C-alpha cells in the first residue's frame, strides 16, 4: 500500500475550492427563505460548512497563495454577505432562543476573528438554562455542540468523554454492521472529537486502533460503490489517525471522480439539470473534498504516514 503524493492530495482541494468560489452566490439565502423561515436551517447548513472549511484551510496552512486569496474572499463573503455580519444568526437565536444552530455556525467564524456580541450574549442566555444541557440530540451532535462551545472560549456544557461514550464509535461495535448512516455517525464523531481535524490526538488510542483496523474495509467498500461524498469523509478520518495511510489507490479514484470544474458528485457520475438543483447536490461533496484535501495534504507533509 502506497501513500498518495502531496501533489495529488493538494490538487483535489485546489479544484474544489475553485468550484466553491465560482458558486459562492448559490450559498446565499433568498428573500423567500428569510421571509418564510421554511428550510432556513437547511439553507444555513452549507454556509456553516463553508465556514468550517475556511477555518480548516486557514489552520492547516497548506493552501498556497492562490488558495489563500480565494479562502479569504469566501470567508468574507460568508460573514458579510451571507450572514450579514452575524445579524442573521442573532435574529435566528432571537426567534428560537434555545437553538444550538447559530452557535454551531458561529464557532468557526469566531475562531477566524469575527465577532457578534449580541449573538454571544443570546447564546449565553440559552447556556444559563438547565434546558440547554438537557436538549435532546443525537450523540454525535452533542459532541459537536461541546466542541463549538470550546471553540468560542466557553466552558463546554457537558463532559466530552461521556458524550463520546454515547456515540456509535465510542462503543466500538461490530464493524461489519456499518451502513451508510452509521458511517456518517463515525465520521462526525471523529470530526467533532478532533475539532475538525485540529487535534487528532484527542482520539483515544483504543478508538484510533479500532479505526486503523477497520477503516480500510469501509473505505474500500464505499469507493467500490462510488459513494464519493462518504468516501471523502472517510478519507478525512484516515487523515485524523495517528498514522494516516493516505492510500494512493483510494485518492486516485476519488480524484478521478472530480469534474473538470472541481465539483465532486455525491455518488457515481455528475448530475445534470437545473443549476440550482445541481448546486444542491454538489456543494456538500465538494466541500468535503476541500476538507479532505486540506487535511490529507497537511498530514502527508507532517505525519508519520503508515507504510
Amino acid at each position, binding site marked *: 500500500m502506497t501513500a498518495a503524493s502531496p501533489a495529488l492530495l493538494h490538487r483535489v482541494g485546489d479544484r474544489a475550492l475553485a468550484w466553491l468560489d465560482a458558486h459562492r452566490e448559490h450559498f446565499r439565502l433568498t428573500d423567500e427563505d428569510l421571509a418564510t423561515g421554511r428550510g432556513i436551517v437547511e439553507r444555513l447548513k452549507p454556509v456553516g460548512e463553508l465556514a468550517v472549511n475556511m477555518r480548516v484551510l486557514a489552520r492547516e496552512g497548506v493552501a498556497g497563495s492562490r488558495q489563500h486569496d480565494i479562502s479569504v474572499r469566501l470567508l468574507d463573503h460568508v460573514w458579510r454577505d451571507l450572514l450579514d455580519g452575524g445579524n442573521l444568526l442573532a435574529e435566528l437565536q432571537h426567534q428560537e432562543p434555545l437553538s444550538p444552530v447559530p452557535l454551531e455556525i458561529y464557532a468557526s467564524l469566531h475562531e477566524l476573528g469575527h465577532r457578534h456580541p449580541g449573538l454571544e450574549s443570546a447564546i449565553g442566555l440559552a447556556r444559563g438554562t438547565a434546558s440547554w444541557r438537557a436538549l435532546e440530540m443525537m450523540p454525535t451532535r452533542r459532541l459537536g455542540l461541546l466542541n463549538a462551545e470550546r471553540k468560542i472560549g466557553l466552558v463546554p456544557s457537558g463532559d466530552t468523554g461521556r458524550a463520546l461514550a454515547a456515540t456509535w464509535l465510542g462503543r*466500538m461495535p*461490530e464493524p*461489519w454492521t*456499518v451502513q451508510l448512516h452509521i458511517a456518517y455517525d463515525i465520521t462526525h464523531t471523529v470530526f467533532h472529537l478532533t475539532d475538525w481535524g485540529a487535534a487528532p490526538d484527542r482520539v483515544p488510542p483504543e478508538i484510533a486502533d*479500532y479505526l486503523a*483496523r477497520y477503516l480500510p*474495509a469501509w473505505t474500500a*467498500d464505499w469507493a467500490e460503490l462510488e459513494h464519493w461524498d462518504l468516501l471523502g469523509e472517510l478519507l478525512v478520518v484516515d487523515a485524523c489517525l495517528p498514522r494516516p495511510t493516505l492510500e494512493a489507490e483510494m485518492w486516485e479514484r476519488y480524484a478521478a471522480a472530480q469534474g473538470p470544474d472541481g465539483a465532486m458528485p455525491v455518488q457515481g457520475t455528475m448530475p445534470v439539470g437545473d443549476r440550482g438543483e445541481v448546486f444542491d447536490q454538489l456543494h456538500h461533496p465538494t466541500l468535503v473534498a476541500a476538507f479532505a484535501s486540506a487535511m490529507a495534504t497537511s498530514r502527508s507533509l507532517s505525519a508519520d504516514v503508515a507504510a
Partner: protein
Amino acid sequence: MAEQAQQNSALSAAVADVANGVALALDGEGDSYALSALLAQEDTVALAAVRVLGADVLAPYALRGDPARGSTDRQVVRRALAAYPPGADASDVSLWSYRGLVEASRAFLPETGADGVDGADGGGRDGEGGEPGAERPPEPRPGDAWVQTDPWPALAHRASQLAALSLPSLAPALAVGLAARTDDLARGFVRAVRRRDWLQAAGVGRWLVRAPDVPDSLGLAAGLVFVRRMSGSDPRVVLHTTAAQRFPGGGPW
C-alpha cells in the same frame, strides 16, 4: 455472471447436497459419517462435487475417525482426485485445494491393513499399502507468495476459497502465514459482509476463529451467526460456519 450461471447446474446442486451432509455430520459427533453415503451415485458429477469441496468432505473424520467406513471414502477421494486433477493452467487455489484433499485423506483416514481387502474394486497389488491399483496422488507444490504479498481484499478472497485447509493439521505453513495477517483477514470479513458475499465472509471466518489474536472488536461469533442467517442457510455457508464452531483455535503455532 459466470458464478450465477453455475448456481443452477447439476454440479452446484451436488456441491450443495454434499455440503449439507457434511454440515449435518459436523453438527452431530461425526461418528456415523460416510462420504460415500452422501453421494447419490459415484458419478462424475458427485466426484466433481467432492473435488470442489476439497478437504471439507472429510471434515467429520477430523472430529472422530472411523477406519471401517474410512477405507471406502478414501477410495471415493482418490477417484475424485484422479478424475479432476489440476490442469496445466490450474489456479493456485485449485492446486492448494487439491493438495488439501490429499493431505486430509492422509491425516484423517490413515491407511490400515484392512484396506487391501475391503476395496470396492478388489484385487490388484497395494503399492504402498494403499488402495488396489491406485498410485499415490501427486502432490502439487502450489505457490504461496500471495500469503505475504496479496493486498488484503485479494488475500481474504483467496483465503476464503481455501477455507477447507483451515481444518486441523492441514497446510500448516499456510495457516502460519495467514495467522500473521489477522488484521487483513478481519478487514476482509468486514468487507465481505458489507458486500453481502456470505460465502466469502464465512470462509474467512473459519481462518479467523483459528487466529491467535483475532480482535474482540470484530465480533466474530456474532458475525458468523449473522452471516449464516443472512445467507438463507446456504449449504456451503452453513458448512463453513459449522466448521468454524467445531474447529475453534488449535492452530499449529
